[in-house]
């Protein structure tokens, strides 16, 4: 079962998902920036020989539509850069869809495990198990001082980015997120939007990840991130407690109205959906709404996105109004009382 369609998702209302990504490159191949098409295809073949017998599905990104590629971004299986890339590049995905390997992204291999809720250790173990299988068959580029060699020097060392997707409405509402970002950067962590580097935060959802990959062990990095998440959860609770009773009543009103709109609207843009998602989720965290399943609500963070809505519809929904109509139908059905 995928990370976004899982009943266990988000038991505490703040951590939506956890992800660990390992960057690996092969000796005797230039990095993707200088890799010609023949060698890029050969490299995909080398990875395929290991992963397909293990039950991974190969998705050749040179042969799929822009819409299908965008849906993989919305599911967080590939980066937006990978979806837009030219030349041979492929995704290998396992059956529960928690493990994926992007081949020829910024690095030759980006091994990724994504799990629902706060499960960094589990995601790390799963990703490293797969990495060890690949290590037995492939010649990873490594230097005893610099660690795993990566195209961009910012990923040298462990080549690991661990990240947690968090819902932080009270800190956002009270204007603390800039300060949170500054404090996190002091301990080598960074705050980004929902789709990682370069993306804006929507619906009070943020990705917190490690900035530094070298000089710390993978366990150190995970601990640092786990500690930061624990502190952020505390801060979010404190921030919610600071909200005045009058303001709380306004939030209750906004949450209940949002439920009404999500269950009844005929047209719904994704921008409006994100706003309503945040109102409803915050209302649930504050105890105002009890008849909506949080895992169902969170599954919409993927299923109500533009490419997913378009691909999931039986009708032609390529224009914006048709897509908004289809999104509204999906929301009504998913959140029906």
């Amino acid at each position, binding site marked *: 079962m995928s990370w976004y369609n899982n009943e266990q998702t988000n038991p505490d209302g703040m951590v939506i998902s956890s992800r660990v990504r390992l960057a690996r490159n092969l000796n005797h191949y230039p*990095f993707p920036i*200088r890799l010609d098409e023949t060698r890029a295809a050969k490299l995909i073949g080398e990875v395929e020989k290991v992963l397909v017998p293990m039950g991974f599905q190969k998705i050749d990104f040179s042969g799929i539509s822009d819409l299908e590629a965008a849906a993989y971004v919305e599911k967080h299986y590939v980066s937006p850069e990978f979806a837009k890339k030219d030349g041979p590049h492929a995704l290998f995905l396992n059956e529960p869809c928690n493990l994926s390997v992007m081949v020829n992204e910024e690095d030759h291999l980006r091994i990724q495990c994504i799990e629902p809720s706060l499960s960094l250790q589990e995601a790390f173990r799963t990703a490293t198990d797969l990495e060890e299988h690949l290590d037995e068959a492939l010649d990873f580029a490594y230097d005893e001082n610099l660690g795993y060699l990566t195209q961009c020097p910012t990923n040298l060392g462990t080549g690991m980015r661990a990240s947690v997707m968090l819902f932080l409405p009270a800190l956002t509402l009270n204007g603390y997120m800039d300060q949170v970002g500054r404090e996190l950067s002091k301990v080598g962590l960074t705050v980004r939007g929902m789709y990682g580097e370069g993306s804006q935060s929507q619906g009070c959802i943020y990705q917190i990840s490690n900035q530094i990959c070298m000089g710390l062990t993978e366990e150190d990095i995970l601990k640092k991130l786990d500690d930061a998440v624990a502190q952020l959860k505390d801060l979010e609770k404190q921030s919610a407690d600071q909200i005045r009773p009058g303001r709380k009543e306004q939030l209750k009103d906004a949450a209940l109205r949002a439920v009404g709109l999500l269950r009844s609207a005929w047209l719904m843009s994704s921008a409006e959906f994100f706003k309503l998602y945040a109102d409803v989720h915050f209302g649930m965290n504050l105890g105002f709404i009890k008849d909506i399943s949080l895992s169902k609500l969170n599954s919409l963070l993927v299923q109500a996105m533009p490419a997913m809505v378009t691909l999931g519809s039986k009708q032609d929904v390529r224009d914006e109004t048709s897509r908004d109509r289809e999104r509204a139908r999906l929301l009504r059905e998913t959140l029906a009382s």
Partner: protein
Amino acid sequence: MLCQNCKKNTATIFYEETVNGKTSSYALCHECAAKMRAEGKLKDTPDLSDTIGSLFGNPFGDLFGNFMGIPEASTGVQKTVCPDCGCDLNAISQTGMAGCPTCYTFFMESLQPMIRNIHGNTRHTGRIPLRFKARKEKKDQLAQLKKELNEAIKHEEFEKAAELRDQIRSMENENRSESA
């Protein structure tokens, strides 16, 4: 490509000289280029990698901008390229990306200050590939034995120290024969 002078080392300095409208090209290794410079036979710029080393001060800001400002000699053009992918420091600075794994060892001296600025250090401490594991275990074991040897000497336990010394010697010999 081999150095045109010694015909042994890989050529890393590519130099063009125009005299009276006639252009001659040279491909030299570092050592021969340095020797020819000292003898006044090569009138190119000083070693570019030395100059770049001092410019890699800021990983995200002026680093790459400043690099582009390095003046080229009016009489010749010098280019140091990675022997595996043909990438030079100019390309690395423009894109912020290395060309291949070998670029890191080849341009290590120039890239090290930038790596330190990004990560705060240049020493990896995490996981290692399977093929490096046995080597690392031996290295760690040797370091531990040396530590124990120092302790034994400090406490005047000479019999133990002699045993440890023999163990260290045997391990070092083993390593030497493995790498030979």
